[in-house]
């Protein structure tokens, strides 16, 4: 596999200047997207934030459209990111997810001083990754570092053993269906607290690996009975508009019978990528 350097910069939050509407019919203006979120990081709970599309840590973009597309499609979860300028120059982080931006976790000392406009370099490697004994399983935006960190084992009956903290039913999959597998993520439509509680997702954390049932995320994202997809929880918050919610960035997809799903409360990128505090 080839590793290449991609130019990025911390994106500044932007706003349309008008209200959106939440699932209770209330007008909302909430933060969450773009910039630097210093107090919500991978490993923290997904929901208890007054936020819409809460992107933990740093949101990396590129003002040039073509370069942005390269950054968005080629970056993989687990890739190393280096700060190139500003007071945090030299700090190292890891790609932890995708949304409208590539999401990066840095050590707390760096997060405290990073700001929109700071330049970053993503060392992108992972697109093109194949599991040689599992040709019917597609890896998407999954770096070799992540796969290794997850400790994916092959079971005695020839299946991939994947640890997850939660399993998502197909009817909850929202914005992100129909898009490319490598693009951003797919929202699980948790926009009301009562649904989070009814389906038992209060414990889910940013960076968790989750399974998505009856989902085919090999060539795009959509419903297909008997297929399964796995992803990492990329963005959160309670406050989203309907049809959005908890974002899950695709990393693996294939026939359900090719996987053994194991519930593990610590199936999280903080452990898998050994993210520094």
């Amino acid at each position: 596999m080839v590793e290449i350097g991609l130019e990025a910069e911390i994106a500044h939050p932007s706003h349309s200047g008008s209200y959106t509407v939440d699932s209770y019919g209330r007008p909302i203006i909430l933060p969450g997207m773009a910039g630097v979120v210093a107090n919500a990081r991978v490993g923290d709970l997904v929901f208890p934030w007054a936020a819409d599309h809460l992107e933990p840590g740093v949101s990396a973009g590129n003002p040039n459209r073509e370069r942005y597309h390269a950054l968005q499609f080629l970056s993989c979860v687990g890739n190393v990111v280096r700060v190139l300028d500003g007071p945090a120059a030299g700090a190292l982080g890891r790609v932890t997810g995708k949304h409208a931006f590539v999401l990066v976790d840095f050590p707390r000392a760096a997060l405290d001083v990073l700001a929109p406009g700071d330049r970053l370099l993503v060392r992108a490697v992972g697109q093109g990754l194949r599991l040689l004994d599992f040709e019917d399983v597609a890896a998407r935006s999954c770096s070799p570092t992540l796969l290794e960190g997850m400790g994916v084992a092959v079971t005695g009956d020839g299946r991939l053993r994947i640890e997850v903290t939660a399993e998502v039913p197909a009817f909850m999959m929202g914005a992100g269906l129909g898009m490319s597998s490598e693009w951003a993520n797919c929202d699980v439509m948790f926009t009301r607290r009562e649904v989070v509680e009814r389906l038992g997702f209060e414990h889910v954390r940013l960076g968790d690996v989750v399974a998505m049932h009856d989902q085919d995320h090999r060539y795009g994202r959509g419903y297909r009975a008997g297929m399964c997809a796995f992803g990492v929880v990329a963005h959160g918050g309670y406050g989203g508009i309907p049809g959005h919610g908890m974002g899950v960035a695709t990393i693996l997809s294939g026939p359900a019978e090719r996987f053994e799903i194991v519930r593990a409360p610590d199936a999280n990128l903080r452990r898998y990528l050994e993210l520094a505090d």
Partner: protein
Amino acid sequence: MSTATINESELLRTALVGDVTSPVLGGSPYDVSADGVPFVPVGAGGICYTVEVGMPAAGWAADQVEPGVSIANPSDPANEALLVYACVGNRVTVRSGAAAGATGVVTGKHEAFHAYKHVLVHLDKDALDAIVPGDRLVVSACGRGMQVDGLPELSCHSLSPDLWNAWAPQRRDAGLRVRVTRALPPEVVGMGSGRVSGSTSVALQPGPADLEHLRIGDLVAIHDWDASYYTGYHEGRMTVGLVSTGDSPVLGNGAATTILLSGPTSSFEFVEDGAANLADLLGLA
């Protein structure tokens, strides 16, 4: 039981401009199908002579084929207004070109991710043959602000009084009895969650329900789905949409469906009727 009434006398009629579009492609002409096969998408944008409202949604060598004429306003904010204010069933007049003076009807809306937003118009065959991309159409928009008398919990979108009167929902004790061709489960919605209900379409993806014999123009109900403001899962609520394009080979995509009506499930009683199709209701075929 009698036909439910709406606030028709309160509704404004406004003029909005849309020009006939032309298809657009990216740097590579290939999209990728659900099975990983590259294909060239054809059918969205411009003028389609082959497919019209009332025809099957499936069976075309196409990706979300737009029946008839596809229009948009070249100014983005004006196009947003065109999309929000135009309603299915509104009258359209051709203002320029060889088909000037011809009239047609709005049949739906089609939003593509990070790409175009189109309003779809049915014209008769002579006008279709004469019209070309760039010709200007004027939509006589009426329907935004519609409310069903006595049922404030219902949200109306993209629904004209003309279509309402032809569809003729019946008033019953707790709500409406409406005709649809079929009722679908929530996971049928692919691309289109989280969008502004009044201006968008949502895709009906294959798999969760039998979409065989689905026709462009069909009215369909979606369970546990809300479109009061934005589109999304919401148990105990329902949405009625109108199939506006053909289906799609792309995973998570399918026939684009324009939002008409949304509200609590308890406010609806559905009657399945194969003739609950725009072409039949407005005599367009």
